[in-house]
């Protein structure tokens, strides 16, 4: 589904991603972990199409198409979804209006009719339950006045309505208390199917107790230094990230 090859990206001439390789197939859950500043969020933003980053090398194929050539909205319509680390507040735009505009844009792209007001309401009411949010969130302005936890839940709610093929969750666990974490994780698990894939970007292992990844990758200094199974996440929790770096440096040092 997603194939990242030797991806290099920089901001103002500073290289942040220095050759990322990653393959994600339908049905899989991948976790990308790494210390602060390792490039995790940059990778997530680059995949969603943020133009603040310059791609200097490499390619990204999404369902065989060149993802980097697509506008952010085109990516979304093709099924890519980014749950933001810092969901953006949009005063004056209701959650419901925003989602309806997004959903209908995506449906149009897929050759489907717009949902009418009643169909839309039925859908969103059902999806709200998935993240244990009440209906009042529909009429509230997008993320405005939401608590940190509510914002993160709202992101997963959007994901539940838009039904992406590839969902990238950027630090969705940060700012969540343990109950909210469980609700969000349950929601994501229910949305996970054989024909979609989830990439979880996180600093901590705790979310992975609830959403169990098939693969764990460690991103350090803009490159994936180590990949493994879910046990790798536990190792990282225990030992931190330094040993990965040390191990990588050792392997790079000529004998």
């Amino acid at each position: 589904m997603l194939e990242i090859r030797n991806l290099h990206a920089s901001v103002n001439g500073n290289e942040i991603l220095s050759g990322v390789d990653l393959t994600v197939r339908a049905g899989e859950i991948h976790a990308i972990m790494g210390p602060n500043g390792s490039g995790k969020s940059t990778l997530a933003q680059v995949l969603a199409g943020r133009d603040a980053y310059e791609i200097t090398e490499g390619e990204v194929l999404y369902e065989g198409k060149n993802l980097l050539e697509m506008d952010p909205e085109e990516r979304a319509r093709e099924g890519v979804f980014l749950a933001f680390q810092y969901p953006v507040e949009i005063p004056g735009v209701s959650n419901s209006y925003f989602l309806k505009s997004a959903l209908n844009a995506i449906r149009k792209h897929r050759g489907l009719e717009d949902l009418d007001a009643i169909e839309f309401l039925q859908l969103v009411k059902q999806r709200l339950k998935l993240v244990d949010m009440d209906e009042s969130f529909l009429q509230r302005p997008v993320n405005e006045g939401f608590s940190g936890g509510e914002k993160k839940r709202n992101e997963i709610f959007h994901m539940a309505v838009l039904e992406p093929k590839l969902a990238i969750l950027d630090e969705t666990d940060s700012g969540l208390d343990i109950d909210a974490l469980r609700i969000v994780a349950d929601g994501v698990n229910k949305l996970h199917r054989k024909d979609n894939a989830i990439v979880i970007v996180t600093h901590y292992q705790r979310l992975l107790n609830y959403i169990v990844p098939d693969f764990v990758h460690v991103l350090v200094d803009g490159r994936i230094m180590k990949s493994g199974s879910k046990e790798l996440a536990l190792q990282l929790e225990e030992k931190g990230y330094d040993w990965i770096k040390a191990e990588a440096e050792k392997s790079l040092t000529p004998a």
Partner: protein
Amino acid sequence: MDQGGSRKIFDACVRKEVGMSHQQKTNVWYQSSFELFEKSLNGEATTPLHAIRRGALERFHALGFPTTKNEEWRFTNVAPIAKAAFTPTFGLPGHIPSAKEIERFSFGTPHRLVFVNGHFAKDLSTVGKLSAGVALTNLATAFKQHRDLVDAHFSKYAPFDENPFVALNTAFAQDGAFIYVPEGCQVDDAISLVFVAVGSEPFYIPPRNLIVLEERAQLQIVESFVTTTNASYFTNVVSEISLGRDAVLEHDKLQHESLQAFHIAAIHVRQKERSNFTSNSIALGGSLVRNNVTTVLGAEWCEATLNGLSVGTGTQLIDNHTTIDHAKPNCASHELYKAILDGKSRGVFNGKIFVRTDAQKTDAKQTNMTLLLSDDATIDTKPQLEIFADDVKCTHGATVGQLDENQVFYLRSRGIDEKLAADILTFAFASDVVNRVHVPALREQLEFLVHAKLNEGRKS
């Protein structure tokens, strides 16, 4: 009545006095127009009211049109108004719009006064059932039928000694709306005042409104300025408002004049104890627009809320000047003015807040926010707080910016294209003010017009 006549006089004067300055020409022009006006008054030119008009004309001659050297007009050059010869009219034009043409400005209310080029159009107006004692009529009628009220309130709140446009309006004050709500009376439906400009000539249109609410009276008014022409006419309107104790007034204004028109407006309010005044001023039309909203919180526990939205496109200039005079203690004022400027349009905001020595415990908040949609659009914004009391809370803030990139990206990353994202965000910025209007039909109309205006701006 006879536009051709006044034009001939003007031409004759100009021919005779080739070396006249603009100021002199202007004075001759409005003097000769005034003489025609007096003739049209048929003997009423001897009333005390007319003495006020004469005084106002004299003052206008002395002041002249302001230049940008005048601090009050620093950013707004009214030379295009000063140089043109606008033609006063002394009665309804021969052709007035059909009821259908102005239907959408009824805003679902049974009370609607329509003025065509400033003159009361009885046939287009409707007045529904009103409580005893409420007067809703045109000012020309009130001059005759409510003389005591007119004498007590007319020209008492809108001083013309410093403002030449108020002086010029007062000199030609002839018609407009007259609303009187007696003690304890709550008018349920909003009153719609529709000012329609018609015809292709450069008319001078000086509506004058007088609105008096006695103790505990409550009212909503919608003033709309609309047009069926794209001519370059000149609206110079003054509304005087007196609010008795505990009176509550929402004054909504929709300014949707021709894009060639000049629109100068002044709203002057005098508030008594615990009265509550809200002004929602939406400016969409006009080539050169200046709105003055002035309220004097002349007694304790008054509240004033001034909201404004300007949407400028092309080369429009929209200038909003507000003055809140906290003269007594324990009053509160809230102010939110927003502007969306596209093309080469210009905006001006000047927010004066006086807090007099007496006015302890004043709570005043002022916010001005501008969204610039193009590189060529500009805004001049100036808070002007003059505080002479020491135990007060006054805040002000101004922001100027483009659409927020993070917001645009957030919308796009969910599948919404760039243009729609910009539309949604721009409209959201505007709707913050539109939603403060409490007349539902007006709010709907405003949503429609603001959308249309923003789209028109994008095309040009």
